[in-house]
């Protein structure tokens, strides 16, 4: 177990290194640099030599490998640098956005669970009956609604027509409801179908038949025996979703003025604010790998037969 965690942490370093290297190369392949944003060239009198001077000062005139190694050397010393455009430390910018991002992710997950769990279970229990068809239809609709449209629709109904909830911003519990629902509905559709498939699979297992022949109530069979195995594919998917959510949900954040990571990085990409982009990549890379590690460990609890690596095999 400890060895597993240690080896995963080793992998983490490699993953982050490769990730940052490739992002850096891709950024340099894309045309443009941050100089015009830094100089506010759209609004103030800037000469070509001013542009050159800033480019030189930031080292943007050097080969990308040199620029990358400068960046990497600072990162090894745990310094992510400062944003070219705002002049604030990258770490501060990221930490500012972390909490709202986490709230939104949790909100979205909660909505997803509240919808997907009953919907998926009912669909499996009433396999090929009306409820299953209804759940399939709901899943199709949920999965095909684009977020920007669903979000607008929710704002239209709940903020404009009913005046029940604020359309945007953050600050209170009310503010997080609409963005969470927007985020959660789409996910719920997919997860409900996954859970249904997982449950159906485990219903056909011998141990379920054994449980049934022992005369256990269906309720107990479902919750105590089938559910644990049925959750396995759901949990795998959750690992991926979690990384995705913590990376920021740009559409939802923009729509609801939610100060999350997604908006920060999209803005940084437009302005070619390299330190922010690189910092963000490290940050989310870390999250994705850690989330998947936790998920992998949770398999052992869900299905004790699962073991990792050579020395854990019995």
């Amino acid at each position, binding site marked *: 177990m400890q060895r597993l965690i240690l080896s995963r942490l080793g992998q983490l370093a490699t993953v982050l290194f490769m990730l940052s290297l490739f992002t850096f190369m891709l950024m340099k392949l894309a*045309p*443009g*640099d941050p100089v*015009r944003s*830094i*100089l*506010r*060239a*759209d*609004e*103030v*009198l*800037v*000469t*070509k030599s*001013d542009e050159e001077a*800033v480019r030189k000062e930031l080292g943007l005139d050097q080969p990308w490998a040199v620029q990358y190694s400068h960046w990497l050397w600072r990162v090894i010393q745990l310094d992510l640098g400062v944003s070219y*455009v*705002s*002049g*604030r430390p990258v770490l501060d910018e990221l930490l*500012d956005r972390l909490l709202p991002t986490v709230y939104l992710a949790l909100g979205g997950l909660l909505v997803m669970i*509240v919808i997907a769990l*009953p919907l998926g*279970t*009912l669909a499996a*229990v*009433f396999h090929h009956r009306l409820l299953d068809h209804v759940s399939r239809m709901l899943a199709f609709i949920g999965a095909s609604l684009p977020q*920007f449209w669903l979000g*607008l629709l929710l*704002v*239209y109904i709940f*903020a*404009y027509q009913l*005046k*029940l*909830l*604020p*359309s*945007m*911003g*953050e*600050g*209170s*519990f*009310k503010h997080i*409801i609409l963005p969470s629902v927007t985020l959660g509905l789409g996910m719920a559709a997919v997860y409900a179908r996954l859970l249904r498939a997982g449950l159906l699979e485990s*219903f056909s297992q011998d141990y379920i038949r054994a449980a049934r022949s022992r005369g256990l109530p*269906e*309720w107990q069979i*479902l919750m105590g025996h089938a559910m644990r195995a049925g959750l396995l594919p759901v949990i795998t998917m959750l690992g991926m979703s979690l990384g995705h959510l913590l990376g920021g949900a740009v559409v939802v954040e*923009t*729509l*609801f*003025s*939610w*100060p999350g990571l997604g*908006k*920060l990085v999209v*803005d940084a990409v437009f302005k070619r604010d390299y330190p922010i982009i690189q910092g963000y990549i490290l940050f989310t890379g870390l999250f994705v790998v850690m989330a998947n590690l936790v998920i992998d460990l949770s398999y052992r609890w869900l299905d004790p037969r699962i073991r990792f690596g050579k020395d854990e095999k019995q």
Partner: protein
Amino acid sequence: MTVSSRSILNFLAISLALLLLLAACSSSETHSSSETETSAQSEREKTVTIMYSFPSSSLDPHQEWVTLRAGITETLVRLNEKLELEPWLATEWAQQDELTWVFTIREGVTFHDGTPLTAEEVKASLERGLEVNPSLQTTLKIDSLEADGQKLMIKTTEPYPALPSELVNPNTSIVKVDTTDLDRAPVGTGPFKVESFAPDVEIGLVRFDEYWAGPSPLEKAKFVINSDANVRALALQSHEADIVYHLPVESLEVIEQQEELTVQSVSSLRAHFLIFNHEQPHMQNEKVRQAIDLLIDRGTISHQVMQGHATPANGPFHPDFPFSAGETAPAFDPEQARALLEAAGWELDDTGQLVKEGKPLSLNLLTYQSRPELPLIAQLLQAEAAKIGMTINIQSVDNIDTYLHEHHDWDLATYSSLTAPRGDGGYFLNVAYTAEGALNAGGIEDTALSEIIAQLNQTSDPEQRHRLTQEAVQIIQDKTLHAFIIYPHIVVGINNRVLNWSPGAEEYYMLTHQLDVR
């Protein structure tokens, strides 16, 4: 699979109960709190909500414009409704010699923390701005600053008559520099103090009671940011916001139907125009440039593409400016355009193409998506050109600035720029028409124009500056160095409960101390 109906009912009941519980919790809470909130608002405090589109991740006045817009900070010089320079934190200014300016700082102004505003504080603020914002270094050209009581002496690195107008730049806002949270809660001199700040989302503001020009009638204000135009329109309709900037044109009809809402469409300081690549042989030909200018249907663009929210352009500067070329925009005349091209040696061939020496007249036009009307304007021009036998190939690029400077395969490009953001024409003339200017991607070199610009850069008398700017505009228009298309409007939705307020062309002064609500 068979499942006993009882256990299913159990399960259903539990999940239903859970769902209901959740729904009940959230809806009951929201209901009661929203009711109390609105009733409390009307009884207790007057407040206004302004909604804007461009996000700001910090409140550092030297990096962002939002602190000025939200009434937190002020500059030494401002623009009035007629877009003329006006004293603000400075009461007067005079040039002592070529390089030296003396600004008198207004008496009786205090920062939000009670410290009186002195020349020393202004000096510290400007120095800090110069230190953190490279663009201020290039625009202010300040060599040294000296403070004595309420007098601030500014020495520039070169003769710089445009200095007062450059001090309109919101990034030259005066702020207390020795505070801990400059980028979260700046201490300025404006009518509102920062109460809370969520980056890119919202600034909560409270009235500053000791404001020098008299306190605002509002107790509180909110400056909210959302970059989705449809959501902004909905916020206006649901009365969540009182003033909403940059409404989508397609939502205006619905909004105007609502009795309590008004839409105002004011000209901005921006111009949409065509850049010609003067390094290409075709575009060096003045007749070709003039022909293209004649092919621009400014009326249709203003009325159809912009749905009436634009003014046909005559030259780079908005007609309200004292130095503009007036309101009559160049005519749309395809026949004249063809005549010009024929005079330049092109002839119509059997297929209806204009050809010279066996080569058809074919041009590459660049455009970009971030201003959605520009590609439409490009298509309209393409269609008009096709009618007289000129081929225009449209290429949409990702990053127009980079493309213009790094590639040479283009003939013309759609572009948009703030041409006189600080009430002076010198900025645009220098940046777009001198060899060194960062906006001169087309490589414009015109001796007569360069001489006028050089003269302008040495002239500080406002009247003379206006005259020189007009002369420059005349040359630009006569030689069609650029083809100016329209001045787009700023479309602002206002709830009728807002009093004493109208949007300005400059988009700087939004939350003012006069703004009141019913």
